[in-house]
């Protein structure tokens, strides 16, 4: 009964993607006709200090995955003399995440308006949009929006860069690409959440974070008053993919409902005659693997961020939810994850470059049934060694955590592969979901 009630209660609540279904919303006149631009107008009628106060009282947190308070970051930046540049991170290298790209493709003016509000608040006059060069539709939409809204006050420049990019690299990757460097993350040299860029400083935000600003400024923060949890007001757009009946992009209220409500309610649950086996909640490996019994975790990042490390602790992440059913082998999943991480390693840190490649090779042997008796113990030992202490960014630790988490969730299945056996009847045929939500 409880589950049925919560499923019934959980529904989409659009703030970030409000108006995205409006035809031609990517055109400036249409965007304005539907209320676009009001947030920026109001922001510019206020002093930067008052804009910061409003965002602080609204308690907007960054949606890139770190969930830091945006207003506090801006206040710190202002105390350091302000930022010269706003860098919008649209890279999204973590598989399973495509939210920022959709926002850029379908709602580019909302993103640009948010970026201009941020620039006004921190005193920046230039905005750089750092994007994967192969996101052609998003680039085109953003370029058209930039041309349509050119102004003297703030310049906006698209910064396309070709992948591959390390996963979980953090904001320093976008800044390094702007410096003309390799796609390698740097150790944090920033002060007060600022990164050094050219001869000045930059503040980096994910596109989704900025997408909330127009609505917040237009309503003086009212839009967050009654929506979301106390720790994280507002909504979160979840990218639900994998083996569910209705995959797609769903924006739901934070603190209302559980992971189960999201997957089994809104996204339709498992396919007929299948059952949910596990969920990679924060995309690849930033969070413990959620098994079928763990799905009643509330969608409230504040509870996940428990510093005491309680049963709910874990990384809430940036909204990627990858769902596996009982046709999926966790060892095969771990192997594929390791290969993805090894392929995207930038090569700067030796433990990461060699460690992810070694894990990929060992897991391939395990999956193929040709592993030696001590291979599994070595895999776990290597995972335990790949901690943040030995790596410059989150790439290798994220790989290690994901593989370790899969092993911890399904130890018997990993052990069975040592004897050459896999109990799962894998189904790798082409499948068609019932529908795809917010597919454009």
């Amino acid at each position: 009964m409880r589950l049925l009630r919560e499923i019934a209660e959980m529904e989409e609540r659009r703030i970030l993607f409000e108006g995205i279904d409006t035809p031609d919303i990517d055109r400036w006149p249409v965007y304005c006709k539907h209320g676009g631009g009001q947030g920026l107008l109001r922001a510019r009628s206020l002093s930067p200090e008052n804009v910061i106060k409003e965002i602080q009282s609204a308690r907007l947190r960054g949606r890139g995955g770190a969930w830091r308070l945006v207003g506090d970051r801006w206040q710190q930046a202002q105390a350091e003399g302000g930022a010269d540049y706003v860098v919008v991170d649209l890279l999204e290298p973590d598989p399973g995440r495509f939210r920022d790209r959709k926002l850029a493709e379908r709602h580019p003016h909302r993103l640009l308006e948010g970026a201009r509000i941020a620039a006004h608040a921190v005193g920046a006059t230039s905005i750089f949009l750092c994007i994967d060069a192969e996101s052609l539709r998003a680039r085109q939409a953003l370029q058209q929006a930039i041309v349509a809204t050119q102004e003297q006050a703030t310049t906006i420049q698209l910064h396309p860069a070709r992948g591959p990019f390390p996963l979980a690299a953090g904001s320093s990757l976008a800044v390094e690409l702007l410096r003309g460097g390799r796609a390698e993350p740097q150790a944090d040299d920033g002060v007060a959440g600022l990164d050094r860029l050219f001869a000045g400083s930059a503040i980096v935000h994910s596109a989704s974070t900025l997408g909330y600003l127009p609505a917040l400024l237009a309503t003086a923060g009212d839009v967050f008053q009654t929506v979301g949890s106390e720790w994280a007001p507002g909504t979160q757009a979840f990218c639900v993919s994998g083996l569910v009946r209705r995959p797609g992009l769903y924006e739901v209220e934070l603190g209302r409902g559980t992971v189960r409500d999201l997957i089994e309610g809104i996204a339709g649950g498992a396919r007929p005659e299948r059952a949910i086996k596990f969920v990679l909640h924060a995309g690849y490996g930033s969070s413990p693997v959620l098994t079928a019994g763990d799905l009643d975790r509330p969608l409230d990042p504040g509870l996940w961020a428990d510093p005491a490390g309680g049963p709910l602790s874990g990384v809430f992440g940036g909204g990627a939810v990858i769902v596996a059913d009982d046709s999926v082998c966790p060892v095969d999943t771990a192997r594929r994850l390791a290969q993805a991480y090894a392929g995207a390693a930038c090569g700067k840190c030796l433990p990461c470059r060699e460690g992810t490649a070694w894990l990929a090779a060992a897991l391939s042997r395990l999956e193929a049934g040709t592993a030696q008796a001590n291979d599994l113990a070595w895999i776990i030992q290597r995972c335990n060694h790949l901690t943040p202490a030995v790596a410059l960014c989150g790439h290798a630790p994220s790989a290690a955590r994901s593989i370790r988490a899969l092993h911890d969730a399904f130890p018997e299945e990993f052990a069975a592969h040592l004897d050459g056996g896999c109990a799962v009847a894998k189904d790798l045929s082409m499948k068609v979901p019932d529908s795809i939500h917010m597919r454009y």
Partner: protein
Amino acid sequence: MNQGRPEAAARPVVPEELADRAHAIVAAYPEPKGALHPLLDLVLSETGSWDGTWAGWVAQLTGTPVVTVHGIARSRRLPEADGEEIAVCTGLSCRWMGAEAVCQRLQEVPNIRVVAVNCLGACSAAPAMARNGRLHDGLTPERLDALVAGDR
């Protein structure tokens, strides 16, 4: 082993329109080096391939050592110089939704090189592939056959 090194003496013949676009990109940055990645993308998207002769041109525009430009370019995902290439996403969602079957079907088609990539960012509409940079997602056996037959 000299393979892959920039040819210091060779300089590409740069069309005027391409040069104008490159200068406009450089002018948008406070420091020319900032334009390095967009310039690499410009060369790759306009020429369809990368060779060392372009490194000198990009190096000159950005004030960056040639070897640095070449090293960064070679660490990026570069298109092959010849033949049609189809990138099939083999990320988890795509794998579970049938990427292997997509690869098998495409490998039956002559003169197409099938490349497995980590993620094309179309996870909810898996399986997905990119042909000549254009994304095709939500693939079904019928849709794939139609794409292979050129009926797009």
